[in-house]
C-alpha cells in the first residue's frame, strides 16, 4: 500500500471559501476504528483535517444523545465508527450501537436535522485504507453540505422567536 492509491490525497480544497472551520467529531471505539485510524496514519494515507476524534471504549458506549448533542450544538458532522458486527471486542457492544445509531439516523430528519451530517460505520484496526475512504467521503459530504445551521442561538437567555423571554 502506498501513497499512490487513488484516495491517498486529500480532496482539493474546492469549497474552501464557505467551509472554512468545518468541524467533524468522530466517536471511535478503541479496539477497531481508533486502531484503523492509527493504521491509516502509520500508512500515511492522507485525509482531510476536519475530523476530531473522541476515543471511546466501544460503540456500545455510544449514547445516541452524544450525537444529538453534537449536532444540536453546531457540529457540522458526526461520525461514529466501531468494530465490524461480530468482531466487537466486547462481543455485542456494536450490536446495541447499530440499532441505536440507526434509530437516531432515521429520527434526526424529523426534527429538521440533516441526517447526512451523521454517519456510522464499521472499520477494523487493519483497515487503514477503508478508514481513509470513510473519512474522505464523509468530509467531502460535509463540505458539500456546508456549516451546520444549528437549531437556534446558543446563549440561551434570549430566545426571541416567540417566547419573548428576555
Amino acid at each position, binding site marked *: 500500500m502506498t501513497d499512490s492509491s487513488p484516495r491517498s490525497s*486529500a480532496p482539493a480544497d474546492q469549497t474552501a471559501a464557505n467551509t472554512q472551520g468545518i*468541524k467533524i467529531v468522530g466517536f471511535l471505539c478503541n479496539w477497531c476504528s481508533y486502531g484503523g485510524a492509527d493504521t491509516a496514519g502509520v500508512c500515511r494515507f*492522507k485525509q482531510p483535517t476536519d475530523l476530531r476524534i473522541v476515543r471511546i471504549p466501544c460503540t*456500545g458506549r455510544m449514547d445516541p444523545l452524544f450525537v444529538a448533542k453534537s449536532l444540536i450544538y453546531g457540529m457540522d458532522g458526526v461520525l461514529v465508527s466501531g468494530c465490524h458486527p461480530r468482531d466487537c471486542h*466486547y*462481543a455485542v*457492544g456494536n450490536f*446495541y450501537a447499530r440499532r441505536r445509531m440507526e434509530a437516531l439516523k432515521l429520527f434526526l430528519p424529523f426534527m429538521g436535522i440533516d441526517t447526512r451530517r451523521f454517519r456510522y460505520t464499521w472499520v477494523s484496526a487493519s483497515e487503514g485504507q477503508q478508514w*481513509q475512504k470513510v473519512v474522505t467521503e464523509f468530509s467531502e459530504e460535509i463540505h458539500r453540505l456546508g456549516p451546520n445551521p444549528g437549531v437556534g442561538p446558543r446563549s440561551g437567555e434570549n430566545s426571541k422567536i416567540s417566547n419573548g423571554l428576555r
Partner: protein
Amino acid sequence: MRIGVFVCNCGTNIAGTVDTKRVASEALSFADVVYATNYMYTCSEPGQQEIQRAIGEHGLQGVVVAACSPRMHEPTFRRAVEKAGLNRYMFEMANIREHVSWIGNDREANTQKAIDLVRMAVAKLRFNNPLFSSKMPVNKRLLVIGGGVAGIQAALDCADGGMDVVMVERKQYIGGKMAKLDKTFPTIDCSSCILGPKMVDVSQKENITLYAASEIESISGYIGNFTVQIRKKATYVNWEACTGCGLCTEKCPSKKAADYFNEGLGAARAINIPFPQAIPKKAAIDAQFCRQLNGKKCGVCAKVCPVQAVDFEMKDSIVTEQVGAIIVATGYDLFDHSAYGEYGAGRYPDVISGIQYERILSASGPYGGHIRRPSDGKEPKDIVFISCVGSRDASVGRPYCSGICCMYIAKQAILTRDHLPESNSYVFYMDIRSPGKNYDEFVRRAQEEYGVQYIRGRVGKIYPRGDRMVVQGADTLLGVQVEVEADLVVLATGVESSAGAGELAEKLRISYDQYGFYMESHPKLRPVETNTAGVYLAGACQGPKDIPSSVAQGSAAASKVQSLFAHDTIETNPQVALVNERTCISCGKCIQVCPFGAIQWKELRGGIKKAEVLPTVCQGCGVCNATCPPKAIQLQHATDNQILAEVNELCA
C-alpha cells in the same frame, strides 16, 4: 487543577507538519493549564524525566501528552506520571501523529487540529479522577467443560502444573470424537494408542475430578471465583461401586439398544460400557431401552452385578464446585447428511458418513476392522467418497469449510486400499484443502501411491441400481458427466457446532457466532480467550479444527489459566462502570444489557434494590452507561461528563 501539557515533536514526525511550539503556547491559554512545552522525543528517557520534573516543579495535578497514538505509548506515560507521584489516570493523550501529522501536509490545518485535540484532552482531564485497582483472591481450581482431546490436554497440562482440575463430560466416557477414530492423518497413528494413555492419565491424576455423564447446570461468579453447578445424570449404576467387569452387559436381555459409540452400525445392550478402553470404565443404563425402567419385569443386571452397583431408583443429582477459571472444550458435532435428498437423505444403508466409516475401519468397531458394507456385509470393491457434505454449502446453512474432511477422506481412502488392495476408491471433491504440515504430501500419496481417483466436481445424485449405488456427478476438469457404480458411498460430513452450544454459552456469558461456534476475544491475538474474563476456549467448540490444532489450543488455554493462577490475587482494571446509588432508579436495564453479567442487584436497607457492578467482571465496554436513563452508572475514565467535555470543547 494544575495541568501540564507536553507536545512531542517526535523528531520531525510531528514537527514536520505541525507547529508544536504553537500548539504548546496555545495550550497555555486553556483553563487550568499552568505549564506547556514541546519536546523532541517525549517518550524518550529524558522526555519522561522532563514530565516528571515539571510535575514536581509546578505541582501538576494532571498531564496531557500530545504525541503518538495512546495505543502506542499511553502505558509508557502512565508509568512515567505514576513515578512522579500522580495517579496514572490523571493523564490524557492527544494523538497528533497518527491522526494529524501523518495524514495531512497542510501545516496550518494540522496545527489547528492539534490544538483542538489538546484542548479536548485538557477538557477531559479536568473531569478525570484518580482510579485505583483493587485485588481479588483467585481460587486456583480449573473447570474443563468437555473431555475430548482438547479438554484432556488442557486438564492434564494444568494438573501437571499442580492445579486442581474439575472435568465435566456430557457423555459417559471421555475421549470425544477422537476416541471413535481408527487412525489419524497424516501419520496414520492409531488414534486410541495415542489418546488412550492421556485418558488413563485423566482418571489417575489425583488432582483431576472427573464428572462423566454430567452437564453444566449453571454458572455464577466471575474470574477467580466461579461457582458451578453440575448435573450428574442418572446412570442407574453406582459408579463408586462399579468395577467395569462387564457382566451386566453380557447378561442384559435388551440387545437392540442404540449403539451410539458405533454410530448406529451395531447394536448395544441397554446396560453397557461403550468401548473396552472407556474412561471411566463404568457401566450405565440407557433408560430408553432398559426393560426394568420401562415397566417390564427384568432386573437381570442388578441380579448379576457382583457389587450391587445397579440402582434403578437413581435420580439426577446436582453437585457444586468452586473454580477460578473455566476452559470450554465442548467440541463439535457432525452434520446430519439426511439434509441431502439427492444423496438419499439417509435412506440407503450403503451411503454412510465418514465417522461411520471410521468405526468400520476400527479394529474395535462393529465389524472388527474388516471393511464390509452395512446392507449385506459384503466386502465392497468400489468405494466412492464425497467431500463437502454439509460444508461450503450455503443452501444447507453451512457456508464454511470444515477443514478436516479432505484429509480424513484421503486417510480413509488410503486405509481402504491397505485393507482391500483390490478395491477402487473414488473421491468427488470441490477443492482439496490440505494446508497442514505434511498434509498435501499425504493427499498426493493417496492419489499417486494408492491410486485413489480424485474427480473434481459435485455429485448430483446417488441412487441404487441392483445392490449397488450409482453416483452421478460432473467432472468439472474434463467437463463431462461421470457415473460411478459403487458398493459403498462415504459422505465426508462436515463439522457443526455441538448440540446445546448456545445454551452453554449463555450460562457462561460468552458469545457465539451464527453457526454456534464460540467467539474468541480476538481472532488473531486472543484466540483462546473469550470476552468473559476467566473463560477460555479450546478445540473445535471455537471452530472446526483437526487434532493437532485442538491439542495446541488445549495447551494454550491451559497456559492462560496457569498465568492467571500464577497470582494469588488479580488486580482489577479500574476503568469499569460504577453505580451512583443515589441516582440509580433500580430499573435493571444495565443488568439486562451487560454482555458480561457484571452487574447485579444489591439490596440496601429497607429492601430497596440498586445495581452494583462487580469490578472484576466488568470489562469496561460502557453499554450500561449508554443505556442507563438517569446515567447513574458511569464508566470510569469515559464518563458522560468526560465525553461531553470533549464534545463541548469542539462545539464551543
